[in-house]
């Protein structure tokens, strides 16, 4: 199982997380699963503002290829770096 933490701007309900039971090998596969569960979710994620953090480590490149294992926590992090 992979737990996905959602920013407030992507939540569709009250919960700030989704749990994905089916095996997903990479971030890319995870996005596909989420998109099937919530149609349009994948398209919404296809935006440069969203990064992924896996177990607290933010991915700056090769993000969708990142391997996942059961128990991982993936956080979707709206990201800006200038202010």
């Amino acid at each position: 199982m992979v737990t996905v933490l959602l920013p407030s701007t992507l939540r569709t309900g009250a919960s700030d997380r989704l749990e994905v039971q089916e095996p997903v090998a990479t971030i890319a596969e995870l996005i596909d699963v989420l998109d099937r569960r919530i149609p349009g979710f994948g398209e919404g994620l296809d935006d440069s503002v969203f990064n992924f953090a896996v177990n607290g480590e933010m991915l700056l490149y090769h993000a969708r290829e990142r391997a996942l294992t059961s128990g991982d926590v993936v956080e979707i992090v709206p990201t800006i770096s200038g202010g």
Partner: protein
Amino acid sequence: MGIRDRVARLVAELPTEPQFPTQGATVFVDLERREVQRGYTPLRVVRTLLAGRGANVFYLHRLLDESLDPLHPDVPLIFGSGVLTGIVPSAARGNATSWSPESGVIMDSNAGDYFPSFIRMNGVDHLVLYGRAGQWTLIHVKEGRLELLDGSPYAGLDNIDLRERIPQDFGGTWTRDLAMVNITRAGENLVLTSAIMAGPKACYARGGPGAKMGALKLKAIVVQGQTRDFETAQPYKGYNRTIAQKLLDTSVVKHALKSTGTPFLYKPSRLLGAMGTKNNQETTWTDRLDADHITPYRPGMAGCFRCPVNCRPLNALNADSADKYGRGDGPEYVTLGKFGPNLGIDRIESVIRLNNICNDLGLDTASTGSALAWAMELFQRGIIARTHTGGIDLAWGDAATVEQLLFMLARREGFGDVLADSTRAVERGHYPPEALKYRMAVKGLMQSDPHDARILKAFALGLAVATRGMDHLRNRVTLEINARINDDPAFKARLYGGPVSAAPTSYEDKERAVRVCEDVYGVGDAVGMCRFTTKLFNSPSLPGLDEFAAQIANVTGLEFSVDELSRVGLNITGVERLLNRRLGVTRAHDTLPDRWFDEPITVGAYKGERIDRAEFDAMLSRFYAISNLTEDGVPTPAWRAELESMLGA
């Protein structure tokens, strides 16, 4: 040649009429003799540098006498609004330019809120101030007329009290028909981290502009009058609507800036392991300062003149109206970082309160927070002790002591007098020379932002080469932190006009990205556009050179291609580098603090990362090459000749 002769020679050259629709005058104010002269920026300068920051450096180049010192009254303080300021959505900005008393290099700071727009609506694009007034002076601008008034009733007032007095004395309502720039007691006391306030929080912050204005004995510039539309060359409002919609449709605005503001950045920086902590000794800190923890204290958002984004968070810590610092504007990310992890403070309530105090005392939170952190590390290491601090323990995380020190700094009392000298503390004999090893500054300016740049090499290069010193706002390649862009090499190459390595830790081609950002942001400052809503600063989808060119044509009738505008951006930093050369800046100053070369990151996914000196030096040489600079960082002889011909005399 003294300042009055320089001004007279320059004014004699300037056109006496506007050179294009909407152009406002350049007003020269001799504060000592209480004399006012006017002219207009020549078209050749506008075509090379535009307005705002661009034309400001033209005026500084012509009037600066580098044999003096920065606080000398013959060194002018120049305010300038952008060519689109007050006209285009989110173009509410202007610059304040001079010779920095803090850093010793060019001082060029930027602010929004309402002053830059309202002064333009009074027919003034640039204000050149010089001479030391005989007494504290207030400049009053109304219906295009400018008068010098007795400012002594306002001496000693800090920001909150002054902003309460001015509407009582002059009439008017803030943000409707009244705007002001002013200094506080810190500026009056020539504190080197003092800002020129432009609102409850907005300020011209970097480089000690408050001290510069205080040295002229100028307390405030109050601008009154009804807002108006400008008479433009062609219709422009339709395209304004296009720009506004583009801003509001951009995901970074929707997901972050409009709802939360820049505190949003804290979490990504923390997750990256790039949070400057305890004077950059560490790179991680608590999640209790994430933006979500500010939400309970944020009653709403505010913004600058005619900006649809409204990215400025308001704060309310409590309902006690007697608590002067129980509410205010902000904090921004810089303040959150500089007064949170940078000082070892982990309570959001403390950071918000310190933010409110800094805004009232008129302090640049970047330099002030950095000066405090520097002192704390020196104390930690035993380089200074209680004998230096007047018995005060400089312990990490002690918010109450930090609060006490802020007031002491603004008044230059006790150890506050040391802190008030900022980066010059060694030079002025307060700290021993070994203290410089721990000073997080470049070109004498403390780092602007909390981000540790050992991971992202483009960030590191930007901080090193920025003309005003260690500052991220001049050229930060913010999109280096966006995986979606890094993982699309073709798109990234289109953004920067050529390939840039996907890996943020790589040095490869990062100079290309910094060059493009420096050009675009320079033009942004010259048109008056907010950095947060300019393409490449946090989004590839925001308005950029294409939109600027289109609206410059509509508003002024002046046509610029995108390439020509890009050249304007390069010209602005070219002139700034010529100015800096006059002030003694060489290639050796385009560098980074030793800590980032010598100390690797110790934790997290980027453990071991640092800046390699040889790689950095090679990257710097490549940056100079694509920037038409010599190996010593100044415009090549042919380019220099072009610029100096345009600048005149």
